[in-house]
């Protein structure tokens, strides 16, 4: 794979330089006028059952074929709007939520959407207990109690949580793909061996979304068709044709020839090469992925606060985003991605070798400090690691890079066997608790506890007071206060924790210039096809 990557880069680069001097001479191909043709890598899809899917491409498809009770406005960052529920409220007790269903909505099958379908869907998530189920089960639902906790009556659904959580936390979680409402009658008619229609929903859809799935071939393509008379207003384009095109240079050629309308798989080299082509426009928005380096606190030298601080000053954040990460990453130094409630944008740390040297002197550790850092074998990560290795060396830290396959590096990380590790993290649902919980909360710092899902535990990080603050923030019912709490937690975490936050990833979408209103969903939501025009 390493060789493949190098070859690909070399090929793409040469191709870009070659293309710079030429212009396609032949006539442009045309995509069908009523169809949006997209090139993307969709081989990450494991399932398109909305209560099982947890991959980007799968949730993109689900966002357009299903609706949730509460939604995020695709055109505005993080604003909640009514979905299949026209209104909702939380009772004085802080644990009882009531959703009033929007009348007159039908599923693709023609069945009316009832409160019963909504209650069934949320119960189904908990009973199936697939990967994304935790987004709902964290409110205290279990397969045993869920029928009592989530109930319906007439046109309302009632939802009881085990503790009085921040309402914004509950609503944000319901906007995730796992909150999709499915057609109970259709799904149960296709049940096999008590799977609640899980097998059937891996190749069919049964929702209320703007589109219906016509065909799906894994790692190849899917076709969606717009529904007529959709409650939100009809989709602008009748069909969406998604093609699995994993290679950047191939995407670029297809886009330039007009054989696809949108590409979500173009690289920096391709984008650079397309500059000056009036037929192509590139849109950039932020994605949810955060890149960070973390230090195992079981290593005595790395538990030294001065050493950690020295390392924060010994990384050339700007230098990287201005060179090999140009356009791909933005400097970001807090655990919440921009776009989340409570996210902060300040970046106080910058490369300062003298300061780092002084801090290392003060720390009292033996210099030069010899440590290793594990890195996944991918181009941008190894590039980042080499830059860090270089600047660390100038400050007096000899960094050995240990480069391995993803699962290998992850295995070592989960076993707390690393010194430093360069990693990325993407949020699981559109609420700040998703990252706060993993970067801060560590219920038991012993090796035996095996809290491998927590990044704090993996680094043997004892968060002290920050943990109490994080637990309070997820309960805060005043959203403005809640925001301020996260801002405070992140600043302290940034300056004291063993996590060195570096970058937030960018989403880059290249499209033909006649395409408008293509919303990727940014950091908090999935892509929206129904507003796109051409």
């Amino acid at each position, binding site marked *: 794979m390493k060789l493949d990557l190098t070859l690909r880069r070399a090929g793409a680069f040469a191709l870009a330089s070659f293309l710079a001097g030429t212009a396609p001479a032949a006539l442009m191909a045309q995509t069908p006028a009523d169809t949006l043709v997209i090139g993307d890598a969709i081989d990450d899809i494991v399932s398109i059952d909305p209560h099982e899917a947890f991959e980007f491409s799968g949730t993109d498809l689900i966002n357009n074929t299903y609706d949730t009770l509460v939604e995020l406005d695709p055109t505005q960052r993080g604003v909640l709007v009514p979905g299949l529920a026209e209104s909702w409220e939380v009772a004085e007790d802080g644990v009882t939520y009531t959703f009033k269903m929007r009348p007159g909505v039908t599923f693709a099958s023609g069945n009316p959407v009832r409160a019963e379908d909504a209650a069934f869907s949320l119960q189904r998530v908990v009973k199936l207990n697939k990967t994304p189920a935790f987004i709902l089960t964290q409110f205290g639902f279990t397969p045993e109690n869920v029928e009592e906790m989530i109930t319906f009556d007439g046109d309302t659904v009632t939802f009881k949580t085990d503790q009085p959580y921040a309402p914004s936390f509950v609503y944000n979680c319901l906007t995730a793909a796992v909150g999709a409402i499915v057609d109970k009658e259709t799904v149960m008619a296709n049940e096999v061996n008590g799977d609640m229609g899980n097998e059937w929903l891996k190749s069919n859809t049964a929702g209320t979304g703007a589109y219906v799935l016509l065909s799906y071939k894994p790692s190849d393509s899917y076709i969606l068709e717009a529904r007529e008379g959709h409650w939100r207003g009809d989709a602008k384009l009748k069909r969406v044709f998604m093609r699995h*095109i994993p290679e950047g240079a191939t995407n670029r050629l297809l886009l330039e020839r007009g054989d696809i309308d949108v590409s979500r798989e173009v690289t920096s080299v391709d984008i650079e090469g397309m500059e000056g082509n009036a037929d192509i426009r590139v849109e950039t928005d932020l994605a949810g992925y955060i890149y960070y380096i973390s230090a195992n606190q079981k290593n005595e030298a790395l538990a030294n606060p001065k050493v950690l601080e020295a390392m924060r000053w010994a990384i050339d954040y700007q230098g990287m985003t201005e060179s090999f990460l140009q356009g791909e990453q933005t400097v970001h130094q807090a655990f919440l991605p921009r776009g989340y409630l409570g996210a902060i944008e300040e970046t106080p740390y910058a490369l300062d070798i003298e300061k780092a040297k002084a801090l290392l002197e003060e720390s009292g550790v033996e210099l030069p400090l010899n440590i290793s850092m594990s890195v996944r074998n991918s181009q941008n990560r190894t590039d980042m690691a080499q830059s860090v290795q270089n600047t660390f060396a100038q400050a007096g830290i000899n960094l050995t890079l240990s480069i391995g396959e993803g699962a290998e590096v992850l295995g070592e990380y989960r076993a707390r066997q690393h010194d430093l590790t360069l990693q990325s993290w993407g949020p699981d649902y559109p609420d700040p608790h998703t990252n706060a919980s993993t970067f801060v909360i560590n219920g038991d710092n012993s090796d035996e506890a*095996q809290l491998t899902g927590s990044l704090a535990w993996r680094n043997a990080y004892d968060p002290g007071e920050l943990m109490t603050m994080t637990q309070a923030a997820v309960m805060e019912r005043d959203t403005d206060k809640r925001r301020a709490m996260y801002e405070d937690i992140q600043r302290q975490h940034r300056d004291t924790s063993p996590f060195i936050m570096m970058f937030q990833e960018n989403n880059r979408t290249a499209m033909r210039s006649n395409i408008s209103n293509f919303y990727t969903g940014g950091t908090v939501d999935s892509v929206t096809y129904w507003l796109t025009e051409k």
Partner: protein
Amino acid sequence: MTAAPDAPAPPAGRLSGLPRVLRLIGGTALSLAITLLGLLLVTFIIGRVVPIDPVLAIVGERATTAQYEATRLALGLDEPMWKQFAIYVGNAVQGDLGQSLRTKREVSEDIIRYFPATLELATIATLFGVLVGVPAGVLAATRPGTWVDQIVRIVGLMGYSMPVFWLGLLALLVFYGILGWVGGPGRLDAGFSMMFELDVEQRTGMILIDTALAGEWAMFRNAISHIILPSAVLGYTSMAYISRMTRSFMMNELGQEYITTARVKGMPEWRVVWVHALKNVMVPLITVIALSYAYLLEGSVLTETIFAWPGLGSYITDALFAADMPAVLGGTVVVGVVFVTLNMASDLLYRLVDPRAR
């Protein structure tokens, strides 16, 4: 994937009493079984010793220790390795290749989906390789040292040494991007592709055959314009190999005494070369062609990636990197069967071409 070793000959003593056809079939079945078992064993062991944890590859970043353990047990990874292998082989014999860990689909269904695309591409690529490679090799052999020979040599050398990724991108850029002579990456244009998915009955999974059977000739032509470039790029490599081998077999053959005799008798030179010599060259050449065909049938990851061609190569490679052993083993079985079958087919062809082998 490595090439299967040539099938061992069946023990003549025990089977010699049976009719020839039965002997042939019995011997083939035996060699198929031994080859596959060996292949599976090696793949299985490699899959277990690589430092990639298959459980982690499935459960991912977020999993708790309890989820991790549950998955490990569900996969039967707590059993001793020999037992895991025995269970796998037992199921495989009954046609159950297991579920892909990554996609959670049946491996056999996945392979049925990906293999036709590879088969279609590899067949046309091999046709290209043979139709160009054999005449080129003959021409070079009959005119050694001339400019014809030099050109065949240089073109062949380029086929060997140019990375297929680079060649593919360049071909795409020139013939699709700039000249617009052929269809782009993918098996059909977007519009046709949707029609194919929705309106055409997919009997074989091979677009050229399915569209022809459905009488969709516009779509058929479009499919040809899409397959021409990737098959030429793939076929180029086998063409290089075939033309070099043809040249050397032919040079050898043309030095034989019967050729001199034929020439002395006044037989036209074209007949000497294209009929008498070529007929004898065909015998070793069949093996060369069959092996290069088998090689292409494994699927070429790079070509598939550039041409957005949903084939077996990408499937097996993706599975390998995800430590998805059922998918890797399933792919290995298919490649193994392909090798043994083609070996058998070339053996049969031998008998047709060479009377001494009958």
